């Protein structure tokens, strides 16, 4: 049971690096929160501050209503899983899992019960006497999870725990972690740079960049309603395409124009851009938001020259040249294209994103506009 609040928290390192800037964040009790961002964005620092492994430079960090700025890690009731697993090489799996309980002077019988419980749940009972050095990556990961689980902590912290696993294992472990969260009924804070992990696991995602929070919201919010170009680019594969152009107001609606291209903006966009004819904007089209099987009409046609075709099994990525710019789309694999051909793509207008080219902020989903 723990609610964590960051109140104007800053983290500056001794070398002057400002890792986290004015962080305001409330992590709700029993929530699965994912901190997402590229390396160096301050997400791990934020996690370490929750754990007590990094000091808060200024601001307040609260667990429930208790200020814990200066509380050492062992006074915080948190458990953590690390990217490298950080198992103690000189201890057996059993001792690794039970170590945190032993340090808390728990009764031997109770330690034994909890360790065996966790081992059973994680299906590592047969490994209890082994040393971590003899285990595979996936097994070590389970031991690391077990070590955190037995503590029954108020807050469960995970620092890129899946990055060292191979692709198939990563997906199955994602499911297990989600299940763990459901059964443990405790607050999870998970750090990753992998958008897919964030989208599958999170109740809410916090996207960070250079120590500053870019957007906080549900996975759906973050993906469908990005507040700026950074968030829009960070999620989605291949990444969102940008086109600079101008707004043109015609007979009650709005058009995005660039050269020959003219796309009719949907009503909810047109409404927000009413009276701004002639404004320069950046249009965002997600890779999957085009279709070439449907007939493109006059108001959603994107005509481009095929540059590359990259099959990925289920679909194919289509690289096209449009007005000296390269765009990547994800299309069905049943249509064959050859480089050099001209292709007509129907853009899904309802899913367009419009950004201010100066500030990179969304003109549709401004702060507070689409909560």
């Amino acid at each position: 049971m723990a609610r964590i609040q960051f109140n104007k928290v800053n983290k500056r390192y001794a070398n002057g690096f400002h890792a986290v800037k004015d962080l305001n964040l409330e992590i709700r009790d029993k929530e699965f929160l994912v901190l997402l961002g590229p390396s160096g964005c301050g997400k791990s620092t934020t996690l370490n501050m929750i754990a007590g492994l990094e000091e808060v430079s200024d601001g307040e960090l609260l667990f429930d209503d208790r200020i814990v700025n200066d509380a050492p890690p062992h006074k915080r009731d948190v458990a953590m899983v690390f990217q490298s697993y950080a198992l103690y090489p000189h201890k057996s799996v059993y001792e690794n899992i039970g170590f945190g309980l032993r340090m808390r002077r728990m009764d031997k019988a109770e330690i034994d019960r909890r360790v065996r419980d966790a081992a059973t749940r994680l299906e590592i009972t047969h490994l209890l006497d082994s040393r971590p050095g003899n285990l595979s990556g996936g097994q070590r990961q389970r031991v690391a999870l077990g070590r955190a689980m037995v503590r029954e902590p108020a807050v469960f912290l995970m620092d890129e725990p899946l990055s060292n696993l191979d692709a198939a294992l990563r997906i199955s472990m994602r499911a297990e972690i989600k299940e763990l969260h459901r059964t443990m009924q405790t607050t999870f804070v998970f750090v990753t740079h992998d958008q897919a992990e964030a989208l599958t696991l999170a109740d809410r995602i916090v996207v960070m960049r250079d120590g500053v929070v870019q957007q906080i919201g549900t996975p759906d919010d973050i993906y469908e309603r990005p507040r700026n170009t950074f968030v829009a680019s960070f999620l989605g594969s291949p990444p969102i395409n940008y086109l600079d152009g101008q707004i043109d107001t015609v007979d009650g609606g709005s058009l995005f124009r660039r050269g020959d291209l003219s796309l009719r903006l949907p009503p909810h966009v047109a409404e927000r851009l009413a009276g701004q004819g002639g404004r320069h904007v950046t249009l965002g089209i997600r890779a999957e938001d085009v279709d070439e099987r449907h007939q493109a009409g006059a108001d959603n046609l994107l005509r481009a020259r095929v540059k590359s075709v990259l099959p990925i099994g289920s679909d194919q990525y289509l690289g096209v040249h449009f007005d000296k710019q390269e765009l990547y789309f994800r299309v069905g694999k049943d249509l064959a294209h050859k480089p050099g051909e001209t292709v007509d793509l129907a853009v899904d207008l309802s899913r367009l994103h419009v950004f201010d080219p100066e500030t990179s902020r969304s003109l549709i989903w401004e702060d507070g506009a689409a909560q």
Partner: protein
Amino acid sequence: MDTAIQVSEQSRRDAEGYRRARLRALWVRRMVIFVSAVVLSIYVLAPVVWLVSSSVQTEAEITSVPPHWIPEEPTLQNYRAIFSATEEEEITYENRSGVDPVSGGFIPSTAKSLLPAMGNSFIVACAVVVLNLLVGVPAAYAIAKIRFMARNASVYFILTTRVIPDIALVVPFFLMIKNLGLLDTLSSLIITYLAVTVPFTVFILVQYFEGLPDELDKAARVDGCSRFQALIHVYLPLSLPSLVAVVLFTFLTSWNEFLLALMFTQTEASQTLPILLAAFTSDFTISFSFINAAGVLAIVPPVIVAIVFERYIVSGLTAGAVKG
């Protein structure tokens, strides 16, 4: 395979030639390694063998030409003298000729101080080892794992103290020891040896601790350890090889140290083995066989220490060199 690949006679001959050349090269390489190993072993072991052999020879035999590697009349008189030297008659310039003229056997006047000196050496060496670990381990952990101001500066400071040669420090040390009233005490040796060895200990351990992942420290602390407990429960068991290297290094340095001991010690109360051994050569008469017997005793404790920790030595000595 139904169809064998056709290979020309010429290429078969070539292949055979290459094979022979490869075997020859391999054989040559083995011989070079073997011969080098033998030469090196002789170079290292011959003095020790001569030391042991001559320690059981009489003074007459020891000076024979050619030397006897295997004693013809082995005698334990030197060892007997060392271990039973209780209240020997004092040997002075006047009665020095009372020595057995046939065997040339001669026991220095200070023979009875040998065992007490060994005791002194042992106490000093053990104290230096223990204090090194007590000071060096927490210092190295702090430098390696805790970010604090002037961390790099303190590492450089510690290392710079090792750049200064001991001889330059002898006089300042002497004045300090004298003013502290510690002349001719074991404490004077322990204190100065620590000044010499602690920087090296810290240096070795910092290297080793830095090679151990930070995440282990974090994991331990989240698991409920204080910094100190993380050190005890996680880092110490993992750094056993480097600890052994430190124990050996500090023990041997203290055991062998001569210069500082020569300055600070005056009597049997604090003289260490190297000082006493050196003094045998400045007695009225020099007995080489006796000095060699004492030399044998002097190498026994280090050899025992080395054998006890043998399996850790190699990994410990290389630990500081290569990270990870």
